């Protein structure tokens, strides 16, 4: 009985993880912005002085009009196919699941689950801060881990942010590579994983090596189930954003690609 149930469960889980991962990497903060607590740096105080060496705002605008800042996309035909696949996965699998889950689980608990998983992946952010010589960020991540794992009830709460205003440093290996001068090369729309670039794909693989979950969870089905649950939970807090995004754009594929590119540049710059 158990075995046959398990056999049935596995393909379902696979499907879930497929759909679950589909929007793993937020494409556009216009669209999704749950992990938008990207590194905050106070603005340089002597703004006018600090900017004097950079091109002026006007020059910057004119340059952009001449030559739009865009990402190379040699794989566009394939990418567009996978964009449609991911789109269907969202509407047919992820959204119905997340909607059902949302109806049952209160929002505070769902936010707590996000905090919990985010706390678990602290080593990824901490190490990437160190790899970018961002010692303050690494220190902040350490304090957050210690505080949130204890006073924050195993990470479900975020007292480091709510009480001490120490915000999460949203760093990953793709950003580390970018920080050291490696460009994104070209855009890739992965089925399941969503928007990425050649550089960020290597970054994603690197982060898997740094992620404690990779080592803690040895069983593949359990890992898939957890990852799926995490994604459903996250999506439940964002239902409607992707729909808005599609409504607001004339070519959603191009809009997603460019938003991904700009957002990654922003994250790399705001170390």
């Amino acid at each position, binding site marked *: 009985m158990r075995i046959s149930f398990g056999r049935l469960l596995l393909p379902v889980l696979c499907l879930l993880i497929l759909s679950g991962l589909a929007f793993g990497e937020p494409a556009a903060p216009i669209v999704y912005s749950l992990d938008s607590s990207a590194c905050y740096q106070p603005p340089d105080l002597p703004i006018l002085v600090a900017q004097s060496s950079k091109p002026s705002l006007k020059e910057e605008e004119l340059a952009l009009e001449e030559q*739009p800042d865009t990402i190379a996309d040699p794989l566009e035909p394939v990418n567009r196919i996978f964009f449609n696949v991911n789109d269907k996965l969202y509407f047919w699998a992820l959204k119905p699941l997340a909607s059902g889950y949302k109806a049952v689980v209160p929002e505070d608990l769902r936010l707590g689950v996000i905090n919990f998983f985010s706390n678990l992946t602290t080593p990824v952010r901490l190490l990437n801060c160190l790899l970018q010589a961002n010692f303050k960020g690494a220190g902040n991540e350490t304090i957050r881990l210690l505080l949130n794992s204890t006073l924050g009830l195993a990470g479900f709460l975020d007292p480091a942010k709510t009480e001490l205003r120490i915000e999460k440093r949203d760093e990953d290996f793709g950003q580390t590579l970018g920080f050291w001068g490696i460009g994104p090369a070209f855009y890739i729309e992965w089925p399941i994983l969503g928007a990425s670039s050649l550089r960020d794909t290597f970054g994603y693989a690197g982060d898997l090596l740094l992620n404690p979950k990779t080592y803690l969870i040895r069983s593949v089905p359990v890992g898939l189930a957890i990852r799926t649950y995490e994604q459903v939970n996250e999506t439940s807090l964002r239902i409607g954003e992707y729909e808005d995004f599609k409504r607001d754009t004339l070519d959603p594929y191009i809009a997603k690609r460019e938003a991904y590119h700009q957002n990654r540049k922003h994250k790399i710059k705001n170390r």
Partner: protein
Amino acid sequence: MNRTFLIQAMLCLSFTFGMVVPVFAGDPQDQLRETTDKVLSVLSDPDLKSPSKAKERRERIQKIVDERFDWEEMAHRSLARHWTQRTPEEKREFVPLFKALLERVYADKVEGYSWNKILYEGETIDGDYAAIKVKIFTAKDQTLHVEYRTLKKGNHWLVYDFSVEGVGLVNNYRTQFNEIIHKSSYQELVKRLKTKSAQN
């Protein structure tokens, strides 16, 4: 004694106001803050919270935003080099279509994220151009970094672009428009814009 003090105080006050007001009225950040405060007051108005008032609320937000956003400048910048190739009639047709789309985008954002608190992080003024950095805290515990770009027209600093977490609105639409014009035509772009505004 009392009277002289009063007169002195009044003189001081009028002097201060006379000096300060014109300076602050020209401040891009303060002008933006004024608009945002108005939007926030509409959003938090309990009378407008019910679903039946959704349309009225949206119209109010759009009216406030219209005063601060320069839609023609945005449309011009989004079409970039294609703008100059358009006839005056085409431009007159394009701007309202673009405006209708962008008003909705903006309203979706402010309503969807339910802005809780806004922190003004400073402005960079560069001649007639100014960039204003804003940090928005939403009801769901998110933090959004928003940057507004404004251009001075008369005494008003009008928004011609804004970006959320580094994703610039004008740049994003510019790439979409450029692709559509390249792959099909300007007429196709207008057709798609019309379909979008019909969805409203």
